[in-house]
């Protein structure tokens, strides 16, 4: 990523296997940024807003979000992040989920998600999609949260 400060990748994904496969494939695309992985919404939100290493206090970040989480819906997290008064409202959010329901996709974009990707079941497609996401991540600009303060 081209930002001066290293961009943290926050991955909120309840499935360990998926998380591992996503990380593997991002790495294969040449992304070496730190990936913080959270299995549930509560701990992810705590990291995002309160942790010293979290994006609010420590530089730009990009969020990979799964919609099916054990403790809350991914759209709830998306709403929190993209809320008017949120310090993270400009942070790019990539929704990465198995659901390809049209209504769900519309809802996510309405709530301000930046990219919506359906996880392909076929692994080759899955790996390709994640690699492309990695390449995408390597070229996009991520705003610094400090600028919003």
């Amino acid at each position, binding site marked *: 990523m081209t930002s001066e400060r290293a961009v943290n990748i926050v991955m909120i994904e309840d499935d360990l296997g*998926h998380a591992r496969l996503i990380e593997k494939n991002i790495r294969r695309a040449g992304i070496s940024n730190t990936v913080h992985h959270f299995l549930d919404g509560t701990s992810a939100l705590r990291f995002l807003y309160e942790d010293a290493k979290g994006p609010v206090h420590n530089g730009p970040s990009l969020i990979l979000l799964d919609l099916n989480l054990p403790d809350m819906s991914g759209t709830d997290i998306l709403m929190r992040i993209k809320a008017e008064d949120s310090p993270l409202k400009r942070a790019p959010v990539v929704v990465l989920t*198995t659901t390809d329901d049209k209504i769900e996709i519309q809802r996510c974009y309405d709530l301000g998600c930046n990219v919506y990707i359906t996880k392909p079941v076929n692994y080759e497609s899955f790996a390709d999609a994640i690699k492309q996401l990695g390449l995408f991540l390597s070229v996009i600009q991520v705003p610094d949260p400090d600028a919003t303060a």
Partner: protein
Amino acid sequence: VSGIRLSLEEMRSGRRGMLLGLQNSWPAYSAARRRLDEQIAAVESLTGDNPLQQANVRELRGEAHVLDATFRGTMPSLDRRFLLEEQVRADAGKRLTAIAERMLGEERRLLDEREAAQRASLQTFYLVLSGAGLLLLFVGSASIFVIMRYTRDLSGARDELEGLNTNLEGAVKVRTKDLQRANEEIQRFAYIVSHDLRSPLVNVMGFTSELEAAIKPLARLIEDADARDSTIVSDEARLAVHEDVPEALGFIRASTQKMDRLINAILRLSREGRRNITPSVVEITQLANTIADGIRHLIVDRGATVEVQADMPTVKTDRLALEQILSNLIENALKYLKPDRPGEIHVTARRELGRVLIAIADNGRGIDPRDHERIFDLFRRSGAQDQPGEGIGLAHVRTLAYRLGGTISVASELGAGAIFTIDLPQDYVGETEREA
């Protein structure tokens, strides 16, 4: 009896008048005498029920004759026998009067008795009457009570019926709602299950691929080692890397791919159930021809013919759903032809009582009657498994047919072709309209 007395008196006065030389008193005497006879006869008939009085009457009549004879006798020879006869006459008169008195007394007694009896019977009559009145009143009130109860029951039943009638619509609505809810729940369930099943499947497939990728360098390593010295690598390790692991991975991959297809089928069915139906007037002939043209190469490949009836009726339904139904059935017919005879597929349709029946008939291998229900179930197939497929097509067709408010049935014998008949409403009534 009083009349008899009166006649006697008249007779007496008539005789007296004659005795006094009044010639014109003779007719009066005769009239009185006649009246006496009549009255005696009347009394006789009146007292017919009383033997005692009958005897009196007979005596009376006899005495009356005596009296009459005496009177008559006295009248012409009045002068001579006046004094002599006077005594006899008076005696007979007195006797007559006494008899009359006796009769009168008897009659009075009888009258009293009768009156008493009458009073008694009157009392009984009143008693019976009041009894009957009471009975009547009781029966009347009982019947009024019964009638009222019936009326109440009847009006209650009517009210209930009315209530039921008005509630029937509501009940139907509630049932429809329930069914829709249940259906939606099933759809949601299918959707969630298929989605949640997909998630682990991504892992299984993903890590299988990772393993396949990882086994390649290992295989190369073993080849390198073998090239240098064949003793470094054990036979077991070589077999594992070259055969066991790739074989296992191959099975895992095949199974997960199949599972993926099945899950996608469920997903598709659940989506189909949720898809909005947009009814429009569909020309069945045109639609069937379009479908046949679309798979022309397949038809030619199979050496079959598809004949579409030229003037099939129109139907107001969801075009896309009907297209999927027809193409599925036509493709199925092409798929399961009998190899030893050229395939002939006929698409026909007819209108029947507000419904449209579309039939797809083939001369293919047919379906065992035992499987006629099964083939519409998801993942179930019939006959020789020599054609690719997951057992989804007909399940999909049936779901679509139900969705359009129709049904599908099959008539077939093994080896004798099959006729699939879709029964659709002439005009699709939308779910929202059905609710209203």
